[in-house]
């Protein structure tokens, strides 16, 4: 039987499903984070990351970050082939130090937000975002 695109969709299971076991942290993610922090250990307070626990659509996951006092915030998807997904810089006159965007996730993984503060220190927040096949809902 030839599996057409329509048939593949009708499985009830998206084509992305084969990547659905939680992704490992890639070496590229560790490297990208280290390159930003210079190896400094970030504080686990001072930044808020808002993301869904389970993505409604892994191709467009809404996230927002907020870190009063930050001069720069970077967002990493630690299981994506290209982990660095966003960088926001805030000038001295910025009214708020927050930003929102939508990111693409290859599978279940941690989203990591790291802020560089005015004094050169770093702050980190992270959250697991699950990407699932779906269906079967109660």
């Amino acid at each position, binding site marked *: 039987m030839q599996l057409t695109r329509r048939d593949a969709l*009708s*499985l009830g299971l998206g084509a992305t499903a084969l990547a659905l076991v939680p992704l490992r942290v890639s070496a590229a993610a560790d490297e990208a984070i280290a390159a930003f922090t210079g190896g400094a250990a970030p504080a686990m307070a001072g930044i808020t990351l808002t993301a869904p626990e389970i993505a409604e659509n892994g191709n467009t996951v809404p996230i927002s970050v907020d870190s009063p006092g930050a001069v720069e915030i970077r967002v990493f998807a630690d299981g994506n082939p290209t982990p660095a997904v966003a960088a926001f810089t805030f000038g001295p006159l910025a009214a708020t130090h927050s930003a929102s965007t939508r990111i693409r996730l290859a599978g279940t993984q941690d989203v990591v937000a790291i802020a560089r503060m005015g004094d050169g220190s770093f702050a980190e927040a992270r959250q697991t975002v*699950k990407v699932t096949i779906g*269906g079967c809902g109660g």
Partner: protein
Amino acid sequence: MISRRDFLQAGMAASAIVGASGFGNWSRLAAQQALTQDQLLQFDTFGNVSLIHITDTHAQMKPTWFREPEINIGVGANRGVPPHITGVDFLKKYNVEAGSARAYALTYQDFVSLAKGYGKMGGLDRCATVVNAIRSDRPEALLLDGGDTWQGSYTALKTEGRDMIKVMNAMGFEAMTSHWEFTLGLDRVTEIVENEMNFPFLGANIFDTEWDERAYPAYEMFERGGVRIAVIGQAFPYLPIANPSWLFPGLSFGVREDNMASLVEEVRAAGADLVVCLSHNGFDVDRKMVANVPGIDVVLTGHTHDALPEPLLVGKTLVIASGSNGKFVTRLDLDVQGGEVRGFKHKLIPVFSDVIAPAPDIAAIIDAERAPFEAEMAEVIGHTDSLLYRRGNFNGTWDDLICDALLSERDADIALSPGFRWGPSLLPGDAITREDIFNATSMSYPNAYRNEMTGEFLKVVLEDVADNLFNPDPYYQQGGDMVRVGGMGYRIDVTRPQGSRISDMTLLKTGEAIDPATTYIVAGWASVNEGTEGPPIWDVVESHIRKAGTVTIEPNTSVQVTGA
């Protein structure tokens, strides 16, 4: 000085005592076959506010059999605690006598013999009688529905929920929240909300994806008995994941804990004395949410169909679980003074349909809505020698029958059937009518697909669904029970992480291990993807039952569970 906590604990004790004496009386009386409506409804009015909660009726307007789960596994912090206890453990925990009317209503044991003794439960005309009785005690009692109300029956499917709207309007519901409602399609939901229902459709966590603004009112303020009550609605958080998002495009859901916290602050600032969350989160998600979000006095939980005879206290929040299918109506009386709950009294009222008289006005609406469909619903398709039920974490006998139908009618190696919690039971010897088949399958995306999947892909599917049920963090549990499987056996260790829970997948017809590289023919239904092709599942099941005449379901031993 007595603290607020002391008051709550005193209230809890009073509730437990009322409950305990109630159980005793009922079991004795039941033994004499002498349950009475007055005893079921007996309640000494307390405080200054009454809440009435009904949830997850799944459009069951008439009385049904509904067997409670035998297997309901909790993981992580929720292992072995309510609602994750069943059978003897449940009876012991809540001091319920085995064989009593309450044991029949709340647990699965001796279900068949007790069902014959105590009769069917539910019926919205009987629920209406309970509501009327509470309102005669307390005219300003607030009647709230937790959702999953417009789907699950033949008539709700054919009328796109109109039958249920009419009944809800006539019963005087004052607010609801939602889940399966959205599977009617966004246009129909909008039509109902704007033109047909005469009470608010609340969803604090429903946002439009384009502007990230609320799509429905988050809460409604009521003033009852001099108390300002804020009812915040929380829809099922995982709708676009668990159900087809193409049916309600442009809407986003989620738990949105921060959103709930800011709403609680908002309603308190607006003068609310009592904050009630009318929720379709599911029990464990609600338990976590109210532990993290301060200021919610009562959460009326839904989705997971749990029926608990006593409130569960999380911090200062009362968690109320009112069951499903119209089997129960919760009455919660509260004493609210100066913006604080000073005490409460609670009763999970079991709706024994042969004991509680139907309210004539509601019975007339139900009959009128059913009349055009009565002949086609009543047609007997076959009979069952076995108890047919669904509720439970793994395969129920209804699911086994559906999987058998998929395997034979669609000529497949393996069948997959979704882990829904709805669907009433049938007793051995019962006729299976077309209505009964629809009660187990009725929904707006019923196509039974037939396709090829590799063994590797099947493993991914089982692991994915298992994590949606057994992830130790409730916020990462997506919804239903485990996918039901026909033609294939497997082992599951619920304590393992995703990717390593499932093992020993075996093709039952050959006894051989499932090979990751081999392709199997798989039949299933209720795909969340648009454009799924195949006959509706009810036609598949009807054809199978017609051929069988009388169905017999052998005990299913092909799923081996460990770590529970």
